[in-house]
């Protein structure tokens, strides 16, 4: 549009200045030009013809910037030629569509006034008149369609659907430019609908003037109406204001002083430089002071965190940040945290309270973050105060030692190393968990209360892609014995169906503590277990080969009638009823030599066996002494889920054992 107008103006000027008034009174004049060029535009095949009071100007090809138009044409059927005035009341301008045009040139004042009316409620009025230095041009837009700007925008931006522009753009001969434009009811959207705006109202004020080597400019942009969704952020107009001041020369667009005022969130200072030839940002800085974290989280961060564990947090505190970009990308990030807290609102899986400190990250220098955490929560368990002295060097991060108090013990993380690549991340650490009493841990996790202490050594935990591998053995002391997990691998940890693989062995567990904990009746003795090829999906076992048996050595071995009944129940109803009918029901305690249970789980079926085989069955408890009891199981195969149901019924129904 604008370029075409310039072509028109140029040709019109040629007409006014080159052709003497006497010639205009002649019957027929034709002017031809192969090419007319000016700053930023060119016109080829220009032909101006005046015949019988009618003026026609044709341009074969007009170019402005990247835009090209064919057959641009100006028609004026009745050109009024008077002594002091040239006028055309009902002309037409042909660009991509036919636009009604009127023009008036006052020869005495040398003022040209052109009005283009592409639509009844849309007017573009050009006023061209002599100024203090050269000619001044003013374009007044009344009801301008915003869609007309589309040809000037990069094709990968969303398509403009609607919008009305009012205002004025002016150019003075002294090289000054000013614009005051207001957009109302703007709408745009891309095909996917993920970048869209509706009823958008924006006010723009722009001023520019030539200085020594460049153009000095200043722009104020205020967003005063409507809503925008730019995946994943949705924002409503709240009079957000962007003000920029800078310079422009042939190679560089520079923002010297910029500011973004975001009501309710805070102010951001901006500066930067854009290389026009290379089409890239060469340098930029952004800085924000004391931004309220809740406002930042709710309006900006939350949409980016949808689907992660940080999707719904309660937040508090303030954060200041400065970011610098260079040709090679991110150069530095400085973050200052002031009593920042965040908490998993609904599920209460984690929380950190009163996090303060500084994180001075540099792309090519070694720095250390000093962050102090006053406290927190992990799976509803209290976490004590700790410091986080993180060493950073570009995308390499390491931490010598971190001690996080948990319940009455602590988690020690040692030699943490992380490397963040463009496509992948990798981290590893070693450490130990110590002194956490099982009573408190199990109570906090809502498990049956177990006694003992949790002391685990984590020789090396590695995270590659989405899997977590523990090299070496994970040791837990519980039930007065030890539990050891080897070859522990966690896959898809944050996926819908996380998988765990491990080999687990248990030694010398106190059966009395164990049975009491799970309300299984009274058993005294010691237990070993070996579970190989354990595979959990969604934290439920789908595969394992488990062998549970009495430990070797001398220790008291007794089993209560309730426990016998429960063990029997696991093998089906047959064995249990035998006890109830026999004389043995008069005894409370029995002696045993050994007990054991094996289960090979595969495809939902548990293949069972015991300490030794018997005709048509297997021995679960082998009796010894007086009175002694031997429990034999007959079902070799049992559906795993059915077995779990049985165990649940047994442990839940055992508060009051019924002895007939």
């Amino acid at each position, binding site marked *: 549009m604008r370029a075409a107008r310039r072509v028109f103006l140029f040709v019109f000027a040629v007409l006014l200045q080159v052709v003497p008034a006497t010639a205009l009174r002649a019957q027929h004049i034709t002017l031809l030009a192969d090419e007319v060029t000016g700053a930023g535009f060119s016109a080829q095949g220009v032909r101006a013809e005046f015949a019988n009071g009618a003026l026609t100007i044709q341009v074969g090809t007009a170019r402005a910037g990247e835009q090209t138009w064919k057959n641009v044409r100006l028609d004026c059927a009745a050109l009024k030629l008077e002594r002091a005035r040239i006028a055309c009341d009902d002309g037409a301008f042909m660009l991509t569509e036919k636009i009604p045009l009127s023009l008036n040139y006052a020869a005495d004042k040398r003022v040209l006034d052109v009005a283009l009316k592409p639509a009844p409620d849309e007017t573009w009025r050009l006023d061209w008149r002599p100024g203090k230095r050269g000619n001044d041009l003013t374009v007044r837009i009344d009801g301008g369609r915003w869609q007309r700007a589309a040809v000037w925008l990069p094709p990968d931006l969303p398509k403009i659907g609607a919008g009305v522009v009012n205002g004025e753009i002016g150019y003075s001969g002294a090289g000054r430019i000013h614009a005051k434009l207001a957009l109302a009811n703007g709408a745009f*959207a891309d095909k*996917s*609908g*993920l970048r*869209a*705006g*509706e009823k958008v109202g924006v006010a723009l004020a722009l001023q520019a003037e030539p200085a020594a080597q460049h153009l000095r400019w200043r722009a104020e942009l205020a967003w005063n109406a409507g*809503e*925008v*969704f730019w*995946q*994943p*952020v*949705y924002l409503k107009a709240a009079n957000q204001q962007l003000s920029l001041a800078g310079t422009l020369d042939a190679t560089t667009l520079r923002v010297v002083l910029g500011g973004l005022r975001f009501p309710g969130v805070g102010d951001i200072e901006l500066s930067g430089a854009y290389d026009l030839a290379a089409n890239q940002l060469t340098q930029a800085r952004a800085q924000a002071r004391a931004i309220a974290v809740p406002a930042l989280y709710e309006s900006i961060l939350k*949409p980016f965190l*949808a*689907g992660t564990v940080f999707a719904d947090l309660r937040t508090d505190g303030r954060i200041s940040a400065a970011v610098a970009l260079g040709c090679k990308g991110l150069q530095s990030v400085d973050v200052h945290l002031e009593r920042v807290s965040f908490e998993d609102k609904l599920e209460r899986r984690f929380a950190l309270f009163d996090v303060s400190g500084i994180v001075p990250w540099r792309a090519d220098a070694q720095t250390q973050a000093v962050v102090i955490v006053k406290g927190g929560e992990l799976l509803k368990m209290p976490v004590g105060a700790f410091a986080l002295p993180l060493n950073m060097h570009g995308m390499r991060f390491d931490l010598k030692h971190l001690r996080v108090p948990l319940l009455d013990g602590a988690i020690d993380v040692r030699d943490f190393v992380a490397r963040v690549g463009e496509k992948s991340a990798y981290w590893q650490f070693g450490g130990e968990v110590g002194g956490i009493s099982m009573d408190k841990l199990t109570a906090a996790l809502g498990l049956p209360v177990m006694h003992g202490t949790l002391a685990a050594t984590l020789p090396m935990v590695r995270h590659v892609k989405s899997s977590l591998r523990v090299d070496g053995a994970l040791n837990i002391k519980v039930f007065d014995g030890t539990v050891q997990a080897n070859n522990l691998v966690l896959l898809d940890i944050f*996926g*819908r*169906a996380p*998988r765990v693989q491990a080999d687990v062995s248990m030694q010398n567990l106190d059966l009395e503590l164990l049975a009491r904990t799970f309300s299984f009746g009274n058993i005294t003795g010691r237990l070993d277990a070996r579970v190989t090829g354990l595979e*959990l*999906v*969604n*934290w*439920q076992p*789908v595969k394992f080969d488990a062998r549970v048996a009495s430990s070797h050595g001398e220790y008291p071995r007794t089993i209560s009638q309730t426990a016998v009944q429960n063990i029997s129940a696991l093998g089906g109803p047959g064995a249990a009823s035998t006890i109830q009918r026999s004389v043995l029901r008069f005894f409370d305690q029995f002696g045993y030599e050994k007990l054991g249970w094996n289960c090979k789980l595969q*495809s*939902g079926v548990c293949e069972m066996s015991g300490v030794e085989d018997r005709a048509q069955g297997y021995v679960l408890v082998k009796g010894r002494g007086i009175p002694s009891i031997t429990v034999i199981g007959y079902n070799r195969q049992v559906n795993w889920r059915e077995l779990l149901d049985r165990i649940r019924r047994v442990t839940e129904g055992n508060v009051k054992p019924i002895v007939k």
Partner: protein
Amino acid sequence: MKTFRLFEIVLLLALLSLASHAGAQANLEINTPGIAAIQASMQKRHAELAPLYASGAVGLTRDGNVQLRDPSAVPLPQRAAVNGLVAAENQDRAALYREIARANNRPEWEGDIRNTFAQRWIDRAQPGWYYQTAAGAWARK
């Protein structure tokens, strides 16, 4: 409850056709904790997706996914949530196809499972829902 049944029917039909596809290997494992977890998550989400299928905002694609096909049917403030819903559903669907293949020790079946499901989701779609034809065009049931 209705949506629950629909899901079950689709799962069953898809698996039946998979079983016939597998020939002699008709003994398909579909009852694993992994599949159950994904299934539960999808069932829960279905209540939110159903009105979007009905309005035509979201349609069933030919490759066993769902897609925001008419964003204008979703007001701007809800668009992020709907987009999140679509992304989560596709994540679950991919996990479901992978998990069924894995549970049966046939990871190479994943593509076939996806194709079978794609066809079944479309076959069982309710009248008025949009789906993608084999040529990729949107059609209404």
